[in-house]
């Protein structure tokens, strides 16, 4: 048994608080960026309105040429050929490739810098917690929340290196703040040993993959919500309606959001498949059966099936776009239920999570 170091544990809690504080400032900066940039973009849009009219026509023509598809796609009835959000209007949305543009968004830069600072402090909190307990820092609700929030922010920042997803900042950072506050307020647990049921290397493998996949699902959830909003807005704009969601100018078009979230969901689905399998292997080691429909197992399965449904929807005619986005949202709702209700309310073999 490793020795518990309470001093480190207290440092860890201090770091968590500091991280939450830093995130709060970052959150404000992200929100400011949304407000400011959308105003600026509107001005740019208005100026460029005349010239862009012609450009749009060529873009649309190129697209029509591109949608040529192989005539001999075999497979079951109702199989979709290509994903479509059914919308081609690009006006009033950010670039679909989600690459960094030339324009300088000072508040966004400040926000990202603060987020990096926050995640470093947060990371220090997670590491000191681990050192204090002499084990991986995910053995109870408090630790799931603090480590989970860290992973969510870290994954977000890693994706930011390649893609300009800063428009998701308010959402991701807001969620991280909620998780940290919930951890400290409702689930606070001092550093301690693991109960025997959790003393297994499978805890390291199974839970880390689960947390990582959940972080990815968090991103796609946010993107799917934005996709629905954007698709609604694009439809509205294309029929000449007024733009009521000005901040959505900063967000790419619905189809781009759909495509990127599909790719992230595909990775997360593989991760979740591993989560489920490793969970089963661990259950076999700990309880002698690899599957017993314990509430936690049920919900892990439900999540898996819903996201399998999502992947299917993307391959089913009439189910791409908006409906697939809804499935992605439902899947995430199940992730949340699995994490909150199932850990706290339902009782099963998994209810040792430190409550």
């Amino acid at each position, binding site marked *: 048994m490793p020795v518990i170091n309470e001093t480190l544990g207290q440092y860890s809690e201090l770091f968590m608080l500091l991280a939450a504080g830093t995130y709060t400032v970052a959150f404000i900066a992200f929100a400011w960026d949304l407000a400011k940039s959308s105003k600026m973009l509107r001005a740019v849009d208005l100026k460029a309105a005349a010239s862009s009219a012609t450009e749009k026509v060529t873009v649309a023509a190129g697209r029509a*040429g591109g949608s*040529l598809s192989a005539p001999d796609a075999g497979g079951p009835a109702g199989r979709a050929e290509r994903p479509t959000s059914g919308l081609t209007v690009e006006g009033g949305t950010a670039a679909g490739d989600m690459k960094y543009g030339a324009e300088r968004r000072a508040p966004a830069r400040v926000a990202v810098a603060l987020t990096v600072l926050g995640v470093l402090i947060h990371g220090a909190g997670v590491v000191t917690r681990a050192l204090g307990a002499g084990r991986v820092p995910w053995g109870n609700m408090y630790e799931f929340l603090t480590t989970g929030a860290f992973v969510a922010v870290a994954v977000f920042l890693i994706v930011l290196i390649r893609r300009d997803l800063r428009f998701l900042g308010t959402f991701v950072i807001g969620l991280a703040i909620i998780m940290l506050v919930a951890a400290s307020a409702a689930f606070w647990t001092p550093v301690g*040993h693991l109960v025997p049921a959790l003393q297994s290397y499978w805890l390291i493998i199974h839970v880390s993959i689960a947390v990582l996949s959940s972080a990815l699902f968090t991103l796609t959830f946010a993107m799917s919500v934005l996709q629905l909003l954007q698709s609604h807005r694009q439809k509205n704009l294309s029929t000449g309606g007024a733009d009521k969601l000005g901040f959505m100018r900063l967000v790419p078009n619905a189809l781009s959001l759909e495509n990127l979230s599909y790719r992230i969901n595909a990775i997360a689905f593989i991760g979740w498949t591993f989560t489920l399998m490793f969970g089963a292997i661990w259950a076999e*080691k700990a*309880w*002698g059966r690899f599957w017993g429909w314990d509430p936690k197992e049920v919900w892990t399965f*439900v999540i898996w*099936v819903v996201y399998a*449904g999502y992947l299917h929807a993307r391959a089913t005619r009439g189910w791409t776009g908006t409906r697939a986005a809804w499935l992605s949202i439902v899947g995430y709702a199940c992730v949340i239920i699995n994490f909150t209700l199932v850990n706290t309310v339902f009782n099963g073999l998994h209810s040792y999570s430190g409550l």
Partner: protein
Amino acid sequence: MSESVKAKKKSPAAEGANTADGKLQQAKSEAALPALGFKGMLRWAWTQLTSMRTALFLLLLLAVGAVPGSLFPQRAANPVTVTDWIKNNPATGPFLDALQMFDVYSSAWFSAIYILLFISLIGCVTPRAIAHYKAMKSQPPRTPKRLSRLPEYGTLALPADAGIPASKAINDAAGLLKKRGYRVEVRDADGDLPSLGAERGFLKEVGNLVFHTSLIGVLVSVAIGGLFGYSGQRILVEGDTFVNTLVGYDQFTPGTNFQSSSLQPYSVQLDKFEAKFDRGESPGKAGQPIDYTAEVTTKETPDSPAKKEVLKVNEPVSLGGTSLYLTGNGYAPMVTVRDGEGNVAFQGPVTAKVQGDNYYSSVVIKVPDAKPEQLGFQGFFLPTSIKNEAGISYSAAPELFKPELTLDSYYGDLGLDKGVPQNVFEMDVRDLTQLNGRKLEAGGITLLVGQSQELPDGKGSITFDGVKKYIGVDIHHNPGQLYALIFGFLAVAGLVMSLYINRRRVWVRTGTHTDGRTMVEYGLLARGEDHRLAGEAAALRELFAREWNVPETPDTDTKTVSSSTSKDQ
């Protein structure tokens, strides 16, 4: 099924380019429904069942169907809880029971969903496998007339003095594509406009098929486990030996096809059990268990050499095709009971059933051998007994700091001779006469280790000799398990292949310009989702340029379709 109807109505619009002809056909097939014969009906039903929309619908239904099993207690896991639940909810209980809400995963409706899903899956996978096998053996499709209409398109011009005629260019291109893993067919190599068709990524579909087939494999493995497996439980007090025969088990659940001859008569003796508890190492968690270790001696067969092994939570012991798991533990107070005639009628450990915090446990002692009358005791065992202000004892710690037995005693007929199986943890006192008890004149029995107490009326005596520990062991044999694991990993491998291999087609056409330059044009097409198609086009362009030494000038002809699917990366 309203979903599929809705989607169906929408589909012509969604397709957009649907001709009037197609619409007419669709209208026909919908209208023709009542006129179908029996065979036609079957075919129609089969098409419906194996369609993507139905698969999606069944998948979502499966997800919804699984949920009630987490809301209500399940018989398979907690039969007692279910009985209590129904008793406590007389209004809804029986109704929910009729809906099989307490047996969700073996219920008729849940089974119907997954069986339909798997039939749909087989109906889906089989024709696809056949179609794909054919596709893999056939040549890449013919070169389209206008390559420029493909999503990725580009041209290269080779200077006249380079000495690369159209026919050489096409063969070079074929070589390069082959090296890159494409299957290539060159057409009209010596004609005016030689061209080639190339295709790669057949493993994508293979991956998809492997994935779906493996799911069937997992299901079958689980079924095999249910048919030929078995599981059981046994409580072992320190010093006890378990022999793997039917009578050795306290509780035994055979699979449907179980034969008792398949039990290998190995033996396990519990030498020592140790539980460690948190003692002030982490604040607020005092008394939380941090380690359970059981030392056992095993024998593979009655004649094999004895082997010392350690059994822990998360570290099962494998023996004779089964696995043994440490799933519970508790205390077994040792008592000696003398009967009215002064003879020892019972001596040994009694397993106490843990009821509350800090191993607050219930105890039942049945002494059928006591003469002239049978004796029975029931009460509680506390490892660390402390009295609160109200004078009620409770257990203050999980360790044996001050073990205490508090018992009531009875005499009469225990009813053990009637042949009706009885729960060892419970005693029916209705036909017994009480001797000791808090409300009786004689009072209850309270014993510390080493103490004994005479029963009233010379009925005998009871002595608390000491405390041993016991463990609960689960024994499982599941022959399907390994296969389920293998199919599980196969499924993941298939999934990764299917999601990350891209199925692509490339066509190249070469020709000679009137000014003597050799013109090369190429086009790429992806089947399904492929966000790296543009990247592949760029890579091919670079390969071609290097092969023919064409200076890489910005190519005004290269077309990139404005959609993020192909533009990014």
